[in-house]
């Protein structure tokens, strides 16, 4: 990503910038007046959040089908937003995830985008009876499910499996996610541990 500061950064004002990814996707940010980054006209990330998390400083989106990646990412965010408008409960339990779960899932989805490993559309985005947000990806016999608990105090994790091998990982770093999504896409035959 190339980001050009148009005005000097001065606390507490947010820096204005205009930039593009190295694939020429347009990115516009206008600092404190508007806190949105617009990417592909679809992907909206809160500028403040991006600044705080450091995610706009050094994004290296690798050379996989990046437009599809960002569209899938945008679609995921849209599905999360839809879930926030569902009723809180039904007769079997929770059906609306917590804001904390959605924020965590959005953060992890962005990390997945950053891995450049290719974000496929999930097979399912759902909420279990405890209100945990579950995002499932499948590729043949390989499955990978991100679980973001309703309670902010509980850790999110990724469950993945192939045949009768399965594992739960709490490490949701960009590096680990890159390895897992690479494996899911078939770029590694070895079951990751």
């Amino acid at each position, binding site marked *: 990503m190339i980001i050009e500061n148009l005005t000097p950064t001065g606390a507490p004002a947010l820096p204005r910038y205009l930039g593009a990814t190295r694939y020429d996707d347009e990115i516009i940010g206008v600092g404190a007046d508007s806190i949105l980054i617009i990417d592909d006209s679809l992907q909206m990330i809160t500028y403040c959040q991006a600044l705080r998390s450091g995610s706009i400083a050094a994004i290296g989106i690798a050379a996989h089908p990046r437009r599809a990646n960002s569209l899938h990412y945008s679609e995921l965010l849209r599905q999360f937003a839809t879930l926030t408008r569902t009723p809180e409960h039904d007769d079997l339990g929770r059906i609306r995830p917590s804001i904390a779960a959605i924020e965590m899932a959005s953060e992890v989805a962005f990390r997945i985008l950053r891995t450049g490993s290719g974000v496929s559309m999930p097979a399912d985005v759902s909420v279990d009876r405890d209100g945990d947000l579950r995002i499932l990806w499948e590729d043949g016999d390989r499955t990978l499910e991100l679980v973001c608990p309703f309670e902010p105090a509980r850790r999110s994790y990724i*469950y993945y499996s192939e045949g009768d091998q399965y*594992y*739960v990982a709490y490490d949701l770093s960009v590096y680990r996610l890159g390895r897992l999504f690479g494996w899911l896409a078939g770029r590694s035959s070895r079951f990751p541990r």
Partner: protein
Amino acid sequence: MPRKDGQDRDGLSVSIEDEQLTDVHKHSFETDGHRGCQIRVSSVREIPPLDVAPDPIETDPSHALIIGIPDRTLGVEQLAATEYMAQELSRRAGPYTFPESLPQELQKPK
């Protein structure tokens, strides 16, 4: 998935198909936004150590429990095993279509 709060610690509630209890089961399983699923007992037993045990209750004499699911709150291994079993159960399950209800006089009393 068994719930986190321990409500399902004894097992996951299911009902054994019984045409005389069609109305009872339809009322329980076909609610707004939900529909019943079916799975064979033999398919449950394909996932050791899972099994199905009868657990009749007043409102549903054919109530049973899928037993053998680990307590996922105990640690990461139990959590992973629970996720695996839930995944395998869902792979073996399919949507259930309730048959026409029996005439009232042939149904078991509620």
